[in-house]
Structures are given as structure tokens and as C-alpha cells.
């Protein structure tokens, strides 16, 4: 197992009170080496909290998180994060932004430049290396962010609704590109999304979360006989879609 969540809970202190707010409780989830796992759930169910724990930016209140069998201790370059709001340094060009993670890793200057160019090329931005983030479109910025995370070669890619702010067309082309890159690099990907379609399209497995406090409700295996042609028109796609939709709907309308 690449990633293991073992009965993980996370509570946040509530301001001006002794109470705590349970954002996650009893989360148990395994992610296989090289797997593409998508995570869906209602807003506020704790998806980003889960990712923060996995990235080592925050610590769980209970339970433990293991990567390659060892507990997570703080952030590290074995995990690369792609945020919804890109998080690019606005005073750096696209190329220099991709180099940022490589600087953190301590890669020598000349090699850094070469690697950064390679990854910008990989996301189709070869001709935009000298542009500043404000001179790029939303889709291009997200590509730079993806290139930055890929460049320092983490084993695990953590993505928090990276395509949510993009228009449908850009989103679809980036989804395809991401799958292509994933197949080429063999990285383990944990991808958070609001979109059921996106979850089914990208994920080998889809983890469905429920809220109050956040838990993993089900993990669904997604497989198609063939990914050729318009996958979204495949009847199986519709079935997965409906299954997840029903789970999330039950979530929205409290039962019993």
C-alpha cells in the first residue's frame, strides 16, 4: 500500500469556546501504488482537511497516516500538491515557477532550468515560459502548477479541485492530459473533486465521502472495457455516475 489512513480523526478548536469541531472521524482508506483515486463528497465534508493531513501541513487528532508504511511527519517533496487557486508566485515567470520546487529540492541551477523546460513542454507551455502568471489564462496557470508539482518528481500527486475554476472545454482537455501524464509517469494520484463526472472519468476508484463528521462512505471500483472513443457516452459511465449521485443524494437528505 502506498498510502494508508488508519482510523484518522481531525478536530478543530472552536474560537471562544472549549468545544472542538470534528471535521473528520474514523477515516480509513488505502491507496495503492500507482493508483488514480478520486475523492468526492459534499462541500465541507472534510476533503481539503484530509489532503492537508496527507501533505503533512497539519496533524491528525487521532489515528495515523502512513506512506510506504511510515507515518507522515511533516511536509516533504515525496508529495506534490496542486491547489484549486494555482498558488503560483506572481513575481516569477512560468519557467521560474516550475523551478521553485526544484530549488527547494536543491537541484543545481543548470539542471533546474533544463528540467523545468521539459515539464513545461510536457504540459504544452513551451512557448510561454517567459510569461508571468497574470499574463496566462486560468487553464495555463493550472498547467504551470501541474508542471511545478511534476518537476520535483514526487511519488504522490495530491490535487484539490484543480480544475474547478476552469470552463468545461479547458477542463476536459486538462483531464485528458492529466491521464496521459499519469500513465506515462506511474505516479499515485489522489484527486479531489466536486464533479461526479470528473470523478468517474479520472478515477480507477472513487472514494465517496459523507459529512458531519467527514467519513469515507464507500469506495467504488471503476473500470471500463475500453477507454476508446467518448467514454462519457458509455452506458457503464452512466451507471457509475448514477450510483455516486444516489449516494451523495442520500447524504443530502438525511434518512430516518
Amino acid at each position, binding site marked *: 500500500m502506498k498510502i494508508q489512513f488508519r482510523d484518522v480523526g481531525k478536530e478543530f478548536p472552536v474560537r471562544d469556546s472549549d468545544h472542538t469541531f470534528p471535521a473528520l472521524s474514523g477515516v480509513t482508506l488505502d491507496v495503492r501504488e500507482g493508483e488514480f483515486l478520486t475523492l468526492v463528497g459534499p462541500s465541507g465534508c472534510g476533503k481539503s482537511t484530509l489532503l492537508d493531513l496527507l501533505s503533512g501541513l497539519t496533524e491528525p487528532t487521532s489515528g495515523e497516516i502512513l506512506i510506504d508504511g511510515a507515518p507522515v511527519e511533516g511536509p516533504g*517533496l515525496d*508529495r506534490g500538491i496542486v491547489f484549486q487557486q494555482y*498558488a503560483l508566485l506572481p*513575481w516569477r515567470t512560468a519557467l521560474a515557477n516550475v523551478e521553485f520546487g526544484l530549488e*527547494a529540492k536543491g537541484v543545481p541551477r543548470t539542471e533546474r532550468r533544463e528540467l523545468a523546460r521539459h515539464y513545461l513542454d510536457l504540459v504544452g507551455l513551451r512557448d510561454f515560459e517567459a510569461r*508571468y502568471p497574470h499574463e496566462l489564462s486560468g487553464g495555463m496557470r493550472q498547467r504551470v502548477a501541474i508542471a511545478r508539482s511534476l518537476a520535483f518528481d514526487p511519488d504522490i500527486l495530491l490535487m484539490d479541485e484543480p480544475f474547478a475554476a476552469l470552463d468545461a472545454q479547458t477542463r476536459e482537455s486538462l483531464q485528458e492530459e492529466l491521464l496521459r501524464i499519469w500513465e506515462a509517469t506511474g505516479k499515485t494520484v489522489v484527486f479531489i473533486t466536486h464533479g461526479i463526472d470528473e470523478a468517474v472519468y479520472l478515477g480507477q476508484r472513487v472514494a465517496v465521502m459523507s459529512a458531519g463528521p467527514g467519513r469515507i462512505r464507500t469506495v467504488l471500483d471503476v473500470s471500463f472495457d475500453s477507454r476508446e472513443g467518448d467514454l462519457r457516452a458509455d452506458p457503464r459511465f452512466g451507471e457509475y455516475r448514477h450510483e455516486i449521485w444516489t449516494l451523495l443524494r442520500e447524504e443530502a437528505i438525511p434518512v430516518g
Partner: protein
Amino acid sequence: MTAVARRAFRASAAIVLLAAVWETLPRLGAVNPVFLPPLTEVLTAWYDLLRTGQLLDHTQASLLRSLTGFALAIATAIPLGLLIGWYRPLAGFLNPVLELFRNTAALALLPVFVLILGLGETSKVAIILYACSWPILLNTIAGVRNVDPLLVKSARSMGLNAARLFQKVILPAAVPTVFTGIRLAGAYSILVLIAAEMVGAKAGLGYLINYAQLNFRVTDMYAAIITISVLGLLFNLSLVRLERRFSTWRTT
């Protein structure tokens, strides 16, 4: 008319109008020419001051004070602001005091400076240093504290330690805000200078204005006033240039 010429015309139209009003009103007797001589007379006086070298001497004395105070303010307030902004508890602790001082007009403290440091150069440079420090200090603190938390989070996720985070994220992100403070300080350095030079100075444009007024050399007084406004304008213009150069990325 070309576009450039048209723009130049539009930019200077109001100035030309002001000059024309200044020239004609005293000549028509609408205002007393003793108190407000026509512009051409003032310019003649200005030229005389320039020719005799007096203007240059006074300007030099003024600029030296201004720039010394300004430079010292930059050298002290930026490091101090970075420190206060970086250590949040320190910023919280000092905030009430900073608010108090920031709302006390610098010139109100001029007598205190004179009392402690005497009438010489030290007190003049010190009051300029003091006045310039506040905008730089407060803007530097704000610049450090208002860095986009997502950028900090993203950098931390890559395992950057505190020192590198400061060097690679906080500092560059704060540069434009710090520059806004520097530009404000530039304006203050001229404003406070003139007031300081009106008290017990032997040279400087503020002294010249005051001296000319006391001796009823009204044209000289206006000549000095014009010089100081042009000086302030040029100083501000060059700082704006510099600021723009350092924050091109900020345009969103």
C-alpha cells in the same frame, strides 16, 4: 496634432492656465502685486538667485538633509518592519504603540527634537528620519503580514524552512507594499524638511523662504517656493518610476 503632442498639451494646459492667471491678476490689480508679484518677476528673481549661486547652495543644503534622513529611514525601518511583521506576537504587542505614534503628527515633535538635539543639523536630519520611518515601517509590516496565505501554504508543502520561506516568498511578495511606503516617505522628507529649516537654520530652501519673507523679498520667497515644489515633484516622479519597475508583476 500628433497623439504625443496632444497628450503633452492636455497635461500642461492646467499649468499654463495657472501661470497665466498668476501673471495677469497682479498686473490687473485684482490682487496686491506687493504680496503676489506677477510670475515673470518671480522667475526673474529665480534666475538671479540661480546666477549668483545662492539657489544652488540652498538646494544642496536641503537635499543633503532630506536624502540623509530618507536614506537612514530606509536603512532602519525596512529591517525593523520585516522583523516586526515576521514575528506575529511582536506585531500584536507593538501595535497600540505604533498606532499612537502613527497618529501623532511628526512636526508636533519638532520642538522635542530641538530640545534634545539642539538647533543644528542633527535635529533636522533626525526629524526627517523620524517622519520618513513611519510610512516605511508600517507598510513593510503590512507587506509581510498580508502575503497570500496560499503561497505560504504551497511553499511549506514543498518543505521550505522558515528562513527560505522568508527569502523566497515573504520578501518578494512584500516588495511592492514596501515601495508604496518608500514613495510616501519621499513626500514626507520634503514636507518635514521645509518646516525644520524654518527653525534656526542658516541655509536651505525652507530657510530661504522664511528669510526672504522676513526681509520682504517677496519675489525671492516665491522663487524658493517654486523650487521646492519642483524638487518634490521630481523626487516623487523618480520614486514612482522605481516603484513601477519593481512591481510589474502586480498588474492583474
